[in-house]
């Protein structure tokens, strides 16, 4: 059923929405919750970059721990 066009289109839209949510959420974190280690808080771009790296790492962990790897 997942391969039928209507469901596939729904899943493509769902995927685009969750990726959009992830990207905008990571862009928001550094602005809504400034992280401060030194005198000045980290720029939102740095926080965004760290979150994207974490995202890649977490996604890899999910692939192996939850879905059994390749």
């Amino acid at each position, binding site marked *: 059923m*997942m*391969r039928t066009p209507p469901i*596939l289109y729904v*899943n*493509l839209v*769902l*995927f685009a929405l*969750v*990726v959009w*949510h*992830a990207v905008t*959420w*990571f862009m928001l974190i550094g602005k809504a919750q400034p992280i401060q280690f030194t005198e000045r808080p980290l720029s939102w771009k740095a926080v965004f970059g760290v979150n994207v790296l*974490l*995202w890649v790492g*977490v*996604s890899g962990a*999910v*692939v192996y*721990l*939850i*879905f*059994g790897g*390749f």
Partner: protein
Amino acid sequence: MAEEIGSTRESLAYNAGRETVHADPKTGEPEVFLEPLLWGLFSLGGFITAFLFPITVFLLFLAPVFGLWPTDPAAYLTFAAHWREPLVRLFFFVLIGGSLFHGTHRLKFMLVDAGLRGPGIQAALDVILNAIAIVGTLGALYYAVRGWLFV
């Protein structure tokens, strides 16, 4: 000698055994408990949705269909084998619960911004949307523990 009174209208003198000295003045307003809890669940759910949802949708619904993955993780036998592991059950419980609490809270404020304002309407939205999140999370919990804690 006059007793020194601070800006919080409480005595600054040492008063052990008499009453607790509060840093904040008592305003008489009821303590807000549920609002920060729901905002906390919204924030936690936002992280859960951002970090875990894209890879889950990709692996379960898109990658096998487009031939981007050697196996089909959504195939019944494959998924049923993974579902025996407690970590997998915990993963889907957290994913579903977090996404529901995030999504319903966000939907509420989208509807408020769209014009559904007023104390009665907002209370109704709170009840309906939080009920959806709670019932959905309990449903996920039921399926996560079914076959493990009970048959």
